[in-house]
């Protein structure tokens, strides 16, 4: 895991490099009855090495914000910068290649591949990113070990508990040492004990310098992050 970058000093004023910079992001979904304005001009800065929780009521645009940062969705207006690169206005293939090296995404409902083993679920992103299979397998085993899942390597996700599946999903997100780890309601499908387990894991990762943006509707979970950003009706209330 990469260590947090030291702050730079310019003209005596301390500046820290931004992992994510969002300016004026707008996203509207067309629907049968009326368009849904999920993002209505969002501004957000996340520094490298920060652990930010994005909270808000259901439907406030939290997950949409995460998706546009990851390039899984596109903004209608505004700019998105990740690791110094503009991701808005890019084509799908560029975004796919960008995600390989810079984005690790953890979904609420895991989105693991059911038909393959835990180990193979982790090998795939490494191979996609260009690693040789042996190297990808070695890296996958390391990450499984890091997350305490070594003994589950040959098992399929269907036989794992919820907490184990989410840890596996986090492991998959970490395989390519991403610049940014995005987690959409990572504890939403888990019980309280499982949720605490995941939160503790995120704290550990943050301690090693990992930049994390976590979406959650739970204030208790959000309290575990370094900074909380509140959203309402598609806007950021407190940056």
């Amino acid at each position, binding site marked *: 895991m990469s260590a947090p970058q030291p702050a730079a000093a310019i003209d005596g004023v301390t500046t820290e490099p931004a992992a994510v910079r969002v300016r004026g992001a707008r996203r509207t979904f067309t629907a049968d009855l009326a368009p849904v304005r999920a993002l209505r001009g969002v501004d957000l800065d996340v520094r490298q090495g920060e652990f930010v929780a994005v909270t808000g009521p259901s439907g406030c645009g939290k997950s949409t914000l995460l998706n546009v940062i990851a390039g899984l969705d596109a903004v209608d207006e505004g700019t998105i910068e990740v690791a110094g690169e503009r991701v808005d206005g890019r084509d799908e293939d560029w975004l796919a290649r960008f995600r390989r090296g810079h984005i690790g995404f953890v979904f609420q409902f895991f989105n693991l591949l059911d038909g393959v083993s835990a180990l193979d679920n982790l090998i795939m992103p490494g191979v996609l990113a260009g690693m040789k299979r042996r190297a990808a397998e070695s890296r996958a085993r390391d990450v499984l070990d890091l997350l305490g899942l070594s003994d589950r390597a040959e098992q399929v996700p269907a*036989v794992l508990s919820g907490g184990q599946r989410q840890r596996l999903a986090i492991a998959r997100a970490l395989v390519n040492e991403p610049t940014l780890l995005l987690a959409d309601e990572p504890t939403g499908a888990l019980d309280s004990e499982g949720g605490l387990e995941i939160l503790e894991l995120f704290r550990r990762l943050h301690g090693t310098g990992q930049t994390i943006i976590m979406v959650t509707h739970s204030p208790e979970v959000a309290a575990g992050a370094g900074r909380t950003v509140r959203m309402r009706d598609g806007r950021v209330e407190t940056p």
Partner: protein
Amino acid sequence: MSLVSVWLRLEARRRARSLAVLALLVAVATTTVLAALAGARRGDSAMARLNAVTLPADAVVLPNQPGFDWDAVRALPGVAAVSGFAVAPFFVEELPGYFGYLPPVDREAFRTVERPVVLEGRLADPARPDEVMVTGYFPGAYGLGVGDTLTLRLLSERQAGDFIFSGEPGGPRVRARIVGVIRSPWYSDKLADKGAWFSVFPSPALFAAHPKNFLGPSSSGFVNALVRLDQGERGLPAFRAGLAKITGRTDIEIWNAADVARHRQQVNAYESLCLVFFALAALAAAIVLVGQSVARYVAAGVGELQVLRASGLTTRQCLAAVCAGPFLASVAGSTLGTAGAAAASMWTPIGAASLVEPAPGFSADPLVLGCGWAAAPLLVLAGALAAAWLAVVSARSEAAPVRSVVARAADRLGLPVPLVAGARFALERGQGASSVPVRPALVAAVAGVLGVLASFTFAAGVADAAGNPTRFGQTFQLTAYLGESGEDWAAAEQVMTAAARDPDVAGVNDARVAVAEAGGVSVTVYRHQSFAGSADVVLLSGRMPEGPGEVVLAPTTARSLRAEVGSSVRLAGTTGPREMTVRGIGFVPQGSHNDYDAGAWATADGFEAMFGAAFKYHLALVALRPGADPQAVLDRLTKDMAGIGGGDRISVEAMQPPEQLAEVQDVQILPLFLGGFLALLAVGAVGHALATAVRRRRHEVAVMRALGMTRAQSRLVVFTQASLLAVAGLAFGVPLGVALGRTLWRVVAERTPLFYEPPVALWALLAIGPAAVLIANLLALWPGRHAARLRIGHILRTE
């Protein structure tokens, strides 16, 4: 039941299109299968039904003797009826190149023996020489039917007195009206010449008005006859004995008409069998295609209904609800399909059976249609229940999915992710909501390749037989008629010497031909005596005879006499019966009175021992060098004959292909239909598998896209799946298809009979691989595009 009706109403609203498509699939399948089965039954029974209504002849008696006393034959005990026909031609001016043959000579024709069914119009008045009837194919072949007029042109009396006639007929013109279209076993079209020959039948009054224009000025022509016996075929031995007694001749050729009917029935039965196979293949294809649709439909329903388990839904209720829609759709489809099959009866029976169908046109087969109408929905219901049960079990199963060996190997080899994923899509069912059956697509791919190759291989066998008369044992290309009834028309040796001198002639056989009798069977015996060069006889087993007590039997004769190589048969020629040892089974020349598969070869000594100096015909059988032009040689030999005394009576003719060739060519269409059907099945099943895989496994594709797989790589997943299906189809379908095609051809070769040469469809073998991969990848274009355009954010959030 209330849940079933509630669910049905829901399904009718939101999935009406799927149910309508299902009903249509069932309708098409039902029409195809039932029409083929009903057509097979109709074709198989056509000959028997025709015999039942037409008083068919039991024997065709060919004394070939001027002034033969047929009244004495009528008086024989056991003879029910005799109807004579003149061995003489007549011509039709409106049809250049056409000549009619064997006009009836007495009023028994068309009435007491071979009484035909009238397909249109009526029978000709036996008192009117200006009325004719035609066979079923004649109107279609010549555009002339009931009510139209033909101008019959007869030979002059002098021309009729010459055995060999050439030039234009110089006899009377008779304007005759076509009054009826008829059919009986004797008055019917043959496969080889539908409508082209022996298809115009004048009233016996024509002969009565102009006898010398058929038999010559001194009635030197022949009248042969159709004979019906009181006891049918069983009465033949007694009839032979009686005929020999009253004529003093044991060499009169008698065709067993039942043999001819049995041969035609064999062809009909074979075609019917092919239709049955076609129906079974269509049924298998329908089960796969319809089964896939039904399985997908009920699996989706089971998935949706699973949430009601928490509310108390039982498994039985779940099964009943999801299966009701497909069942009702299939009832509708089956009803429509049955009506379609009934309508399709207008075009059955097909092939050779259509030439003997006594009641062509619409004919609904209640047994086939009734059983089919009931069976189709029951099959669909059974399939739906099985698929639903499997879906219920799968939804509750915690078993790990089975991984494909090929996919795992691809993974271990470090192949790119899209290739590994494509292999999984092609070969692994998957789990839960994303599971997709993979076996139907694999089986269909194999079946498609198998079907195409089998049909092309079979077609290669037919083409080989059509282009190689030697497969039918015809190693002689030309025949020179040197004499008849014991008398040569010219110096035979001079004629054969002239033929042997031609640079394109490879061999000449001095063949005398006569008819022996063996166990109630007439056997046309050929003398094998090489005059010049060599010409092979095609043997199926054994060797050629070497001594006077040995013969080679043609296969059908051997079967009739229950003889094989090493057997002893008793052949009775003009000198009396002799025991002959069968040394080989082989083909004989196709003659005017024998087929290539009926007869025998004897040495010169053996022939003389059986017949002395007598013969029915004296022929020179001429074999040509490979690549020689038969017509050019025929023209040269005909010219050479002019320089030989009596040579103007010698006719040189080209060997005609056996009728069985046309029968073989006629059944070629069914394997081609079958191959095409199976290929369509493969295309449908593979296309369905590709589209379904992308749809059902879109979550998996979305996850891989989220991890960084590009759109091009998404397409590659689908192309890999398609290519693997094609490769699987080729790996198993090619060897199986070649084997099946050859096996089918061998069955045909043995039944026909002909010499079996393993067929090779070279171009099909070369093209099937690239074609299969290309078609599979073309089918992958749209699903690949769909995979590349998935809204991954939306899918990953909602699933």
